């Protein structure tokens, strides 16, 4: 019995000893003082920060809004500059239009021929030529910035010629022959007979 009491006392003493050691170590763990002047440094930092951003929060929002507006306007301006090019590029090529017209046209009158040829082959002044840097597909953009597309009738006619070239040729020849005959009748009958009247009579 005294032995157990002794052991209990000894373990109690050891525990107390450990408690004391632990208390001392924990006190040392936490016992720390900041360098002198911490308050002044913190206050100085706070005063600097308080003056700079937080007194004028509206200024930050205003700057952000202005930046957003400038960005939006810039994007819109850029897009409006970009927009016209695809419209021009989407127009059908003028060479196709011209060739199709020339194929189907019987050219009954000399004046029409002259006009068509003149329109296609009159050389431009050198000063008005497009710069070399421009793409070759749009050589006349300076003179004709927005070429008119083919009308519905012209498109239908061009498609017909493409699909049925023989028939188109036949029709064109017939038309030409008819025009020549009309001319001949007019020459024979003199100036009294009008071409419209002769045409209706012959028909």
């Amino acid at each position, binding site marked *: 019995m005294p032995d157990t009491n002794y052991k209990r006392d000894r373990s109690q003493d*050891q*525990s107390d000893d*450990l*408690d004391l*050691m*632990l208390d*001392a*170590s*924990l*006190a*040392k*763990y*936490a*016992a*720390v*003082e*900041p*360098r*002198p002047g*911490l*308050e002044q*440094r*913190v*206050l100085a*930092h*706070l005063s600097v*920060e*308080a003056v700079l951003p*937080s007194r004028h929060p509206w200024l930050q929002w205003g700057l952000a809004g202005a930046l957003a507006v400038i960005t939006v306007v810039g994007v819109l301006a850029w897009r409006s500059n970009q927009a016209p090019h695809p419209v021009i590029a989407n127009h059908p090529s003028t060479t196709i239009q011209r060739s199709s017209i020339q194929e189907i046209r019987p050219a009954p009158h000399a004046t029409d021929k002259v006009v068509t040829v003149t329109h296609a082959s009159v050389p431009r002044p050198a000063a008005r030529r497009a710069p070399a840097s421009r793409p070759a597909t749009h050589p006349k953009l300076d003179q004709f910035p927005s070429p008119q597309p083919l009308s519905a009738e012209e498109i239908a006619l061009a498609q017909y010629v493409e699909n049925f070239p023989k028939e188109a040729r036949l029709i064109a020849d017939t038309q030409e022959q008819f025009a020549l005959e009309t001319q001949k009748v007019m020459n024979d009958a003199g100036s009294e007979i009008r071409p419209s009247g002769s045409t209706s009579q012959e028909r």
Partner: protein
Amino acid sequence: MIEDRRVVAGEAILSGLAAESSRNEVLESLVREHSRLVYRIAYAVLRRHHDAEDATQETFMRVLRYSLKLDKVEDAKTWLARIAWRVAVDRSRHLGKRYEIPLEDPQMPVGEIASKNTPADQVLQETQLAGVVQNLITVLPEKLRAPLILSALEEMSPREIAATLDISEAAVRSRVFRARQILKEKLAQRRSGK
């Protein structure tokens, strides 16, 4: 009518300025009263002088950011301790990825310098023991370590520790007790091993 509006606007500006100046005064008093506590909380977590001071600055910066809510704060000390704890823990996690926390701060703060009257062997023994305890605290589970660290700070009562860690006061007491038990067992093993 216009004069009345001017008077009202002037009063509003003056009251706004007065409120701002009172907020600044409150903030200044908080710094003067509690910057030491904030620093010690930060140092208890970070164990580095510079990091602790940076954490102190950041804590008061957060207070400045929320200065409009200062009027609603009931217990400024606990509120500050909570912010300081979070800042220090966040910083510790961030710094933990870069380097290990050293056992000895190269720029040891003033309080840790031993008295000249203490015998040299005792100073050495205490320093070694403090290092051992610090190591043991480091390997404690987070759940036990946090209340133990805060309980080591003399300024913090169990109620304030509970409010800081967002747990009950009973939980604080039991966790501190368990942490101390673990530390004592480890120290006893270490002593018997010698």
